[in-house]
């Protein structure tokens, strides 16, 4: 049997975009061995499960476990419920997303299943019946391939990597209720404080606009925020230097001691390109660099560069992007 379980993530009763990515990755694994894909959702009663169209993404069935305590993330309850479903279903693999919640959940599920966990997976293959997972380590300075040598393994996929390809075949997506295992809650999420900046995170946004020391001060980041807004789907990122200087929050830091990102488009403004920053963004599909110094290392990895003053270039770029998106 080579069936795969995809773990979906919801917030406030709505499935997050990364849930579809987990299903896409699970489909890829299942198809190599003719298996089926079940998606699992843990939520409070009344969650909108149909809205995410998980069948279109490749789920044969959508297992829904509801419990009052699952309204916000319930660490032990969600882990116990998913582990119970994984055991009952005899899956070959469990696919989780390496989101903030997934990074907490996946190790819990793996420990409860006594199964190995591979974190931050960017590619999956099956060879000789075993799952081979590819993942960047040393924050992207090296690429590792690991083989899962156990009957069941857990893989946590990097957001933005397993996006649905063209021609993905729709599957049933039949909703099947399953038992919630609320279990013993040792930790409790008391509150979720929403950030003022909105819900788009630098690790998951399709476009990232990052600023570095070349922005000369925190007050000038309004220019970066304006450009991000013009894209409509962009998050603001920052270099380590500006986070350490207290100009921007750590949540925005891209690089080896921050987040490793793989957006469709990465715009680096006033960032020279220290090795530890490059490690965190080199897997972006397209990189644009804006810097005064034509010899800055960032231009070595950038697909397109503009040499010059960011304060002069950014307003113009914001205006042009706005026009391009309106047109």
């Amino acid at each position, binding site marked *: 049997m080579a069936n795969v379980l995809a773990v979906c993530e919801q917030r406030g009763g709505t499935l*997050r975009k990364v849930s579809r990515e987990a299903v896409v990755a699970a489909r890829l694994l299942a198809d190599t061995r003719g298996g089926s894909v079940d998606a699992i959702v843990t939520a409070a009663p009344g969650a909108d499960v149909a809205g995410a169209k998980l069948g279109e993404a490749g789920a044969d069935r959508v297992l829904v476990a509801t419990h009052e305590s699952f309204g916000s993330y319930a*660490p*032990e309850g969600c882990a*116990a419920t998913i582990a*119970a479903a994984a*055991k009952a279903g005899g899956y070959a693999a469990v696919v989780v997303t*390496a989101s*903030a919640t997934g990074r*907490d959940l996946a*190790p*819990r599920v*793996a*420990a409860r299943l*006594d199964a*190995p*966990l591979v*974190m*931050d997976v960017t590619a999956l293959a099956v060879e000789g019946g075993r799952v081979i997972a590819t993942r*960047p*380590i*040393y*924050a*992207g*300075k*090296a*690429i*590792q*391939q690991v*083989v899962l040598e156990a009957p069941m*393994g857990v893989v946590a996929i990097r957001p933005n990597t397993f996006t649905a390809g063209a021609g993905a075949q729709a599957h049933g997506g039949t909703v099947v209720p399953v038992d919630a*295992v*609320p279990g013993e809650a*040792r*930790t409790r999420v*008391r509150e*979720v404080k929403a*950030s003022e900046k909105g819900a788009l*995170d630098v690790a998951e946004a399709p476009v990232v606009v990052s600023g570095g020391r070349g922005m000369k001060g925190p007050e000038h980041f309004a220019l970066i925020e304006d450009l991000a807004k013009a894209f409509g789907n962009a998050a603001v990122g920052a270099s380590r230097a500006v986070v350490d200087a207290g100009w921007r*929050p*750590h*949540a925005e*830091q891209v690089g*080896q*001691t921050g987040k490793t990102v793989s957006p469709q*488009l990465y715009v680096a403004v006033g960032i020279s390109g220290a*090795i*530890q920053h490059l490690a965190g963004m080199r897997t972006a599909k*397209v*990189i644009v660099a804006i810097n005064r110094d034509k010899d800055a290392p960032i231009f*070595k990895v*950038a697909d*397109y*560069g*503009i*040499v*010059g003053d960011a304060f002069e*270039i950014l307003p113009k*770029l914001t205006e*042009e992007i706005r026009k*391009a998106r309106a047109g």
Partner: protein
Amino acid sequence: MRANNCSLAPRTPYLAPLTLHRDHRTVKIAVCIKRVPDTETRIRIAGTLIDETGVKFILNPYDEFAVEEALQRREKAGAGEVAVICLGGEAAQETMRTALAMGADRGVLLKADAIPADGLAVAKALAAELKNGGFDLVLFGKVAVDDYNHQVGVMVGELLGLPVVSAVSKLEIEGGKVVAEREIEGGVEVVECALPAVLTCDKGLNTPRYPALKGIMAAKKKPIEIRPAQLGGPALSVKALASPPERKEGRIVGEGAAAVPELVRLLQQEAKVL
């Protein structure tokens, strides 16, 4: 074949729970640390490992937050003990001395010739060491910046049957109750649990101190116990390690704001990302 000792809910702790210190004026904290290559290091590949020649090794940056937090909690309590526990080779003692120089009291090296890629194998070895330690708090860095496994701390908590809060960037502990904040996409989760607990530490939690000369001298005399790590057969093996593919040579579109329309055209028509 792995032994499967984990039962499902209601969950019986896999290992005996820690005993909580009744005397709250003393606090007993374990910090699990790792020796990693400096983040500024260039990585050269040697087989399925990296070539360590000339590489400078440091205490994992996130573990510094864990050590600092432990020291501050001990100072606040007025008395107590901070033990650093490290799984690694002989050379890891040097890294442990850094934590001892910051102010930790003693070290335990769980000696292993190689650190397995399988995070659960590492977690089991650490859990076996911690289970009878009587710690009020077990701290980890949220991730090690070498293998980015991002799992060992949470697994240890699960194996010990203890509450775990991961990636903590703000922490209050009052009367045996923990209130911790962790960043999630677009917000912050406020999580509570009771002691004893396992926490993994994120940047922002505190500002790690630099070891003072006095601390460095004192660290030389602090005890480090060495025991073999109890590592079972790993369930993961490394097949290959490679350098990331080089990005193809990019181009300078032009200089100043005048180059912006051409850049936008390229993004639309050539890169097709708009």
